[in-house]
């Protein structure tokens, strides 16, 4: 008898030798059922449902046909094109700077003492507050004229800037808030990753005459491969779903300058009640996320060794 069967044998269910094959499934099904019910209701089910809705066209009196109408409308909608374009800019503009900054900070604050611990704390603090709270603070910081940024820029002789109201600056401002919010989180991962880079390897390279830049490129970065492998999917999910500040600060404006895919979906669903368009946009976003993440999952597979 296996351990599991012995364990269950002590329960109320009688062990019948002839039914042993089906019996082994009982603990598995019982243990997984609670999770599977909720995953079915709120993860797998919704994916199938949104896929179906995206192909449902011309609803009248509860009946509808199957077709590509929603996708035609979606791809013809300039707002969607703008949101998709903005989201690519937003993803690159948030992920690249925050990862570079996070790695630089982790390298600088690698040694632990009171001073570096304090600096790390300051950089990690934004992670602890809600993005809407950050939005509330930055609404004032970016306020034209009386706001904090303009207040201090004025002392340097720089005039009033409409950080969120200018179509050329708004997306950059939203990106800056996001970088401020996320950098500390990624820095923690790099700090943990750097702890796994053997110091004697770096020392040996130094003795062999490798400079700081060379050590970074040839030793540290390759050994941080697995760290990048799981940060990138997290960062991609963030780039698609962290839109709380867009909802509260800019509402996608001015004139679509900060409209992002999920905000577009939110508008179609909550404001225009256009389920077809919202569903088609969700399908496209999910497909993009899954395929991009698959690429970085490959990196994880190559780099991370799970203990078994």
């Amino acid at each position, binding site marked *: 008898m296996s351990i599991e069967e012995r364990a269950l044998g002590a329960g109320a269910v009688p062990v019948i030798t002839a039914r042993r094959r089906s019996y082994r499934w009982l603990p598995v099904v019982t243990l997984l059922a609670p999770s599977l019910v909720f995953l079915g209701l709120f*993860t797998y089910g919704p994916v199938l449902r949104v896929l179906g809705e995206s192909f449902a066209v011309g609803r009248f009196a509860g009946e509808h046909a199957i077709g590509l109408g929603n996708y035609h409308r979606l791809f013809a909608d300039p707002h969607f094109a703008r949101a998709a374009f903005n989201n690519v800019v937003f993803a690159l503009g948030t992920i690249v700077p925050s990862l570079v900054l996070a790695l*630089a900070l982790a390298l600088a604050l690698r040694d632990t003492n009171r001073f570096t611990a304090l600096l790390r704390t300051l950089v990690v603090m934004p992670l602890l507050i809600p993005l809407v709270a950050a939005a509330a603070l930055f609404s004032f910081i970016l306020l034209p004229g009386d706001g904090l940024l303009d207040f201090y820029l004025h002392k340097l002789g720089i005039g009033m800037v409409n950080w969120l109201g200018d179509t050329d600056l708004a997306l950059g401002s939203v990106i800056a808030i996001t970088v401020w919010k996320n950098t500390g989180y990624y820095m923690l991962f790099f700090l943990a990753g750097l702890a796994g880079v053997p110091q004697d390897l770096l020392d040996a390279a130094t003795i062999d005459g490798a400079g700081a830049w060379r050590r970074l490129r040839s030793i540290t970065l390759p050994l941080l491969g697995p760290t990048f492998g*799981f940060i990138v999917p997290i960062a991609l999910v963030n780039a698609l779903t962290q839109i709380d500040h867009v909802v*509260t600060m800019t509402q996608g404006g001015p004139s679509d300058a900060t409209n992002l895919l999920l905000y577009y979906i*939110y508008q179609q669903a909550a404001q225009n009640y256009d389920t077809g368009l919202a569903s088609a946009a969700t399908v496209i976003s999910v497909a993009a996320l899954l395929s991009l993440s698959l690429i970085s999952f490959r990196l994880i597979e190559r780099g991370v060794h799970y203990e078994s």
Partner: protein
Amino acid sequence: MRADGRLWALIAASATALMWAVPFAWMAVASLRPGVPPDIASLTPSGPFGLSNFAEAWTSGSFPLWYLNTLLMCGGILAVQLVTISMAGYAFARLDFPGRDLVFALFLLQLLLIPPLLIVPNLATLVSLHLYDTLPGIMAPYFASAFGVFLMRQNFRAIPKDFEEAAMLDGAGVPVLIRHVLLPLARPGLVAFAIVSVTAHWNEFLWPLMAVSSPKNQVLTVGLASFTSGAEAGSAWGVVAAGTFFVAAPLLILFLVFQRRFISSFVYSGIK
């Protein structure tokens, strides 16, 4: 030469960290300045200082209700999650069944397909389950947690089987085994999961915004958004700062007190 490089790196990091702290510094300073001072942006004002912004924020928002709803939401999610993840975690760690890796991969899909992304179909599901505009409706999509299952699987695997075998010889069944033998041994993992889960849900906005409509079901983040838009319209920036402090303070204070535990939990959330 090398020491010089370290020094410059530390100086640059200090400058960055100070810049990172500016929004918090402004929140603290502005929230303590009553009225509408013209230099409300100043980080080094000369006074006067007082607590009237906090009093005004507290009375004009429904903070007690929002705190209660947020606590119920975070606590409810965590309580159900602990049950679902320890059960599934045990199945993946200790039971052998055909298709286990495939089912596990299906679980992990949830790491990407998080509820805010599936707003449209999830809202329809809530309506058909009669959970729209209820606190359990906000919680339900999070009752299963792929991350938690992953974490518990790793934790259970790290526990030697001797403990279980001894308990089984004493006649313990799987439920007793999980609750009284494995979970106590997996406590560090449970604490890490609890910290990550509560932080994530305390700070969440878009899904709670969509899943409820009546003010009596609002959580802190949703309340803050409507509260600040009102206060901003009146340029009451000190009140905005005080209200933001009410929302951000509980987790920030816990973080500052239990810093090491929080940080290892966040790191855990990515690696394990």
